[in-house]
């Protein structure tokens, strides 16, 4: 648009009326009230709110108890120009009957002093039942909420006693800790149930979000605007809408209190951006799963939810080394993903969660990774032949594919790094050493055969002793004599050396010292051999008391065995 056209458009606009003198009105609404009943003291000044220096307190009779107060500004279109009006309103409850007047006073309206005229209130006994004060009705969809949980709020202006419906303008909520979404306002006229009576009312519905925790108290204010409806409105039922110029009257509602709880810290999930409500999502869809490095792909993610989605906050963008992520402009919830490297195998996981006030729990809505194939630009597979002598032998192209797997191995880790394999390598050498040691022993025994003879004699003696023991236990004197003689022969055989069977009693006696030979051991040996040789006699008889020589035989054998 050219500057000239812009200027023309500005000139064509209606001008604001700043030349007319500032006027003021003051009144009690209603002018007659019962004791303890509500009435409103309302002052309207034809100036902007910022221009008026309104006193903090108003001088009034002590019988008039002041409650909530509010102020509002409205612009009135007067044919060819605009005029701004500011209203100050106080809730008043008289404590005694009588005629009370708030005297006139002056306020500064950016220079000129404006006189606020006096206003009178007649207070009658409550039983007189004067008409109640006209006020707004405030209704909320919930009283217990979580911080940030949007809720619906309705401001109602019931029809007048003449059943006339007026519009409301400049509706506002007075109270801390609330955020009003005026873009989602909805207006309607329909019958509502108020104090048990069905009455038509102008309804303005809006979405409000608590932004502070704890008990929140607030009330609504708004100007009546006659038939000046702003925006679309749905009307149900028969209503009467007054004609003529509207009368802008600032009205208040009774206060409403809601309790706002902070969101629980326990169970919080990653990716929570403040989305409150019951949501679910469709499976994410990627525009393509095969793309090149630097080539964008669109990830479509759709969330569904119950109630108002206008305040839905999209998932926060995660940090990814492999991807550049760009979020779609709200209210869309998709993403544009650009791979930065071909090492990316899947789209990044986008953590997201919501809080469901109905269950009091966080819900996981994380967008899962989707597999992709990212392709990078290849490298040259062939180069022109070089004239350089040093490189002339170098190949000018890559080889073909190998048609077979070729030489295989169990692992690329070399055997040298495995401890058990090193030990296995030493096994043959250890075997050779063992063989060598065995051979040395064999040669030693060949040079010293008496060692072997004595070892064999000891073994045979052990066996013979066992037989001797068995014969003793069996009471077999003949067997005892035979085995005792054999044992004695075996125990002396290595000293000759000779075969044990070739030895006789004298050979055994020869191995005993003189004292033993002539003493009891010698006698024992002789008796044993005599008894053993008796078996060759024609009428072999072995004395039964021979078994009594067992201890003597053992003593002789022990003595002989010590010499082995």
């Amino acid at each position, binding site marked *: 648009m050219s500057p000239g056209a812009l200027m023309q458009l500005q000139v064509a606009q209606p001008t604001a009326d700043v030349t007319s003198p500032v006027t003021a009105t003051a009144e009690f609404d209603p002018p007659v009230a019962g004791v303890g009943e509500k009435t409103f003291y309302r002052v309207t000044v034809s100036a902007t709110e910022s221009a008026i220096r309104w006193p903090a307190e108003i001088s009034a009779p002590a019988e008039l108890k002041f409650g909530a107060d509010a102020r509002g500004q409205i612009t009135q279109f007067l044919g060819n120009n605009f005029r701004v009006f500011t209203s100050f309103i106080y809730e008043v409850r008289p404590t005694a009957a009588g005629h009370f007047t708030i005297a006139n006073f002056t306020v500064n309206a950016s220079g000129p002093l404006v006189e606020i005229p006096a206003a009178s209130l007649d207070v009658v006994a409550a039983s007189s039942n004067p008409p109640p004060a006209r006020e707004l009705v405030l209704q909320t969809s919930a009283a217990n909420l979580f911080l940030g949980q949007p809720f619906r709020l309705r401001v109602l202006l019931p029809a007048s006693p003449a059943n006339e419906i007026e519009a409301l303008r400049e509706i506002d909520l007075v109270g801390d800790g609330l955020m009003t979404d005026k873009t989602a306002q909805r207006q309607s006229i329909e019958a509502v149930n108020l104090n048990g009576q069905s009455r038509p009312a102008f309804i303005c519905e809006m979405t409000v979000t608590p932004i502070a925790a704890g008990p929140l108290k607030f009330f609504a204010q708004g100007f009546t605007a006659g038939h000046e409806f702003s925006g679309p409105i749905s009307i149900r039922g028969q209503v009467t809408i007054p004609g003529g110029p509207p009368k802008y009257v600032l009205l208040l509602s009774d206060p409403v209190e809601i309790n706002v709880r902070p969101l629980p810290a326990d169970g919080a999930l990653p990716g929570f951006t403040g989305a409150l409500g019951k949501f679910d999502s469709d499976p994410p869809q990627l525009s393509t799963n095969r793309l090149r490095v630097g080539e964008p792909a669109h990830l479509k993610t759709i969330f569904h939810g119950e109630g108002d989605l206008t305040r839905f906050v999209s998932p926060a963008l995660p940090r990814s080394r492999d991807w550049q992520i760009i979020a779609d402009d709200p209210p869309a919830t998709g993403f544009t993903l650009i791979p930065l490297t*071909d090492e990316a195998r899947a789209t990044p996981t986008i953590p997201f969660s919501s809080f469901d006030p109905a269950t009091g729990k966080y819900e996981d809505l994380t967008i899962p990774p989707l597999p992709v*194939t*990212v*392709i*990078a*630009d*290849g*490298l*040259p*597979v062939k*180069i022109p032949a070089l004239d350089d002598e040093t*490189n002339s032998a*170098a*190949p*000018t*192209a*890559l*080889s*073909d*594919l*190998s*048609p*077979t*797997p*070729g*030489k*295989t*191995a*169990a*692992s*690329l*880790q*070399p*055997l*040298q*790094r495995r401890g058990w*394999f090193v030990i*296995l*390598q*030493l096994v*043959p*050498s250890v075997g*050779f*050493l063992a*063989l*060598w040691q*065995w*051979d040395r022993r064999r040669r030693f025994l060949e040079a010293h055969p008496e060692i072997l003879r004595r070892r064999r004699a000891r073994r045979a003696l052990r066996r013979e002793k066992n037989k001797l023991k068995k014969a003793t236990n069996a009471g077999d004197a003949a067997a005892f004599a035979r085995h005792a003689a054999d044992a004695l022969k075996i125990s002396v055989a290595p000293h000759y050396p000779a075969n044990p069977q070739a030895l006789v009693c004298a050979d055994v006696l020869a191995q005993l010292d003189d004292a033993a030979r002539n003493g009891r051991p010698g006698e024992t040996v002789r008796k044993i051999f005599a008894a053993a040789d008796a078996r060759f006699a024609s009428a072999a008889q072995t004395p039964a008391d021979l078994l009594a020589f067992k201890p003597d035989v053992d003593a002789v054998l022990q003595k002989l065995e010590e010499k082995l």
Partner: protein
Amino acid sequence: MKLCRHIFLSALLFAAGILRAATTNDFFAQGLELDRAGHFPEAAAAFEKSARAQPASGTLVNLGLAEWNRGHAGAAMLAWEQAHWLDPFDLRAESNLKFARLVTQLDEPQLKWFEAASTWLPPDAWFWMAGASLSLAAGAVLLPPVFRRKKSGWPPALAALGCCVFLFSLTTNVGVVTRTEIGFVLKKNASLRLTPTREAEAIATVPAGTAARKLRTRGNYYFIRTADAAGWIEREEFGLVCAEPGVSP
């Protein structure tokens, strides 16, 4: 009964071996098809699976070709080095490495003399050679007396030969072990850092395919030395020659 159980277990093990080999061959065949169709990322993945199941020189050569064609010079050169490690006589791997180094203008890894000697044969061959030569020497010295043979003649010569081969193969085995610390930079323009942390100052940038020697390990980082610089690098940006393909050691 015991015999039946042994036969059954042996058959089971045999079948498992055949199945594993069949799966490996399936991946290899799949990789060949994908590579010929120009699907290099998928082909590389198939060859990688095949090589992970059973490392083979041909598979690694093909893995290197697929990686090269998808622009991964570092991964390609590592795969060819691994193929060369497995089979020093693989001409494809050797030729491709020469070609790659010509294109990237990168040097071969600097090897000491015993490391260079260890490249003449596959690493395991040196190991077996050391064991066999030691056994030969020990046998030549110890067995003749056991069998009552004369110590003179060929046994001493055989023992001397065994000792020589054993001593030489001992040095090449050392070379094989030290070569396991050699690796290649996988990422393009990877940063060498002053300390093993992500926030550390980058002291040098090295191109993909640069050969380096791993000196230390700390957490997720290797301290490596290239021909020109030394510093810490992330594990996933550096591949060791003896590491299984696709597996961070």
